[in-house]
């Protein structure tokens, strides 16, 4: 299943629509890392609301995406993790350490605003 990637202002938003295979995840990773440079975005949001299972590969890929995006000079926020998924993930020891998370898309946008604003002011000094 292809994940649509939308450009919204200075951000890139990827909304996962359903269960993804490992190849889908890798393609998402390639596309996101590519688009972030192409659109000169400051932030990326990956919305996983539709996922009701998150396995170790998905977690690992999300983590890689966040680190790669960081290297490309932007911030990543993962949003919309379901309570059951969060519970299962912590039980399996799958954490998203050092990666910003938010309740839903709206919260994610607010968080990105804060992050990029903070970065913006620090670079102006």
């Amino acid at each position, binding site marked *: 299943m292809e994940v649509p990637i939308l450009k919204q202002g200075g951000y890139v938003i990827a909304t996962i629509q359903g269960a993804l295979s490992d190849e889908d995840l890798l393609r998402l990773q390639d596309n996101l890392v590519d688009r972030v440079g192409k659109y000169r975005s400051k932030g990326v949001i990956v919305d996983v609301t539709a996922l009701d299972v998150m396995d170790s590969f998905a977690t690992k890929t999300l983590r890689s995406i966040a680190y790669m995006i960081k290297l490309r000079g932007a911030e990543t926020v993962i949003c919309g993790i379901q309570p059951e998924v969060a519970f299962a993930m*912590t039980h399996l020891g799958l954490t998203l350490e050092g990666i910003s*998370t938010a*309740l839903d898309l709206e919260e994610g946008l607010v968080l990105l605003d804060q992050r990029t604003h903070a970065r913006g002011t620090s670079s102006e000094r």
Partner: protein
Amino acid sequence: MAKKDDLQVQKIPSQVVADESWSELLRQLVAHLRQNSAQLRQEWARRITQARLLTAMTQDEIFAEATTIYDNYVDALESGTFEALQAYARQLSERIIPRGVETDEVIGIVLLLRDVLARSLFAKYQHDFPFLNRVLDAYEPAANSIANTVAVSFVKERERTITQQQEAIRELSTPVLQVRERLLILPIIGLLDPQRARQLTEQLLQGIRTNRAKVVVIDITGVAAMDSNVANHLVQTVEASRLLGATVIVTGLSPEIAQTLVTIGVDLTKMNTVGDLQGGIEEAERLLGYKVIPVSEQLRKE
């Protein structure tokens, strides 16, 4: 009437004949038990005391209960239905469980009654062995199912009490409260076992979603002891909450718990801890951008 009987005899003659002698036997049996009830009841009560059963109850109480159980018992034998006895057993269990009567005592007294009655039958029919055998054929299955019914009622009542209490504790144990917009507190009181920790985490995660919480204060002032298991549960709760975008502040670690955690080497560096609930709420307000100032101060500024 006669015609009806004829029809039945034609259909299944042998069984009807057997039934008739069966019910006749039971009738005789019941008559015998009713006639000698006073004496048998006394004998039963004596043997209960002798066997040191129902020690939580006084002699008079035992005798009073024995009388009622005896009557119910004979009624059940006569009618072959156990509803009344079942209801009585349930009632009795309700009364005696809080007084510390054990399952083996209840089963013990019912079995004693069965023995007392069987002995009286032996004594009565000892001269006619084949007839005694037939009487016992009628008596034993009925007596066994009665013993069964009473024991099962008792155990069921007991289980019901236990489940009720468990549910009460479970419901009491984990309130998730909203104190400000986007700020939840979760006071934990008592023991944290794996099952409770799991339930608590689930409730908290649902609470975070429904209240759209940004900050959660978990107060563990009421947790008396903590080991590495409990600490790990707490860490997991914190991580799961973070995945939903909420920050967790843990408050109220007692000096003992702080010492234990450091001694056993649990890594709590990922956790945000504040001394007490007040401090935790203040910190949470700071994170959310609230500032509480007294009205007088505000007036002075204006």
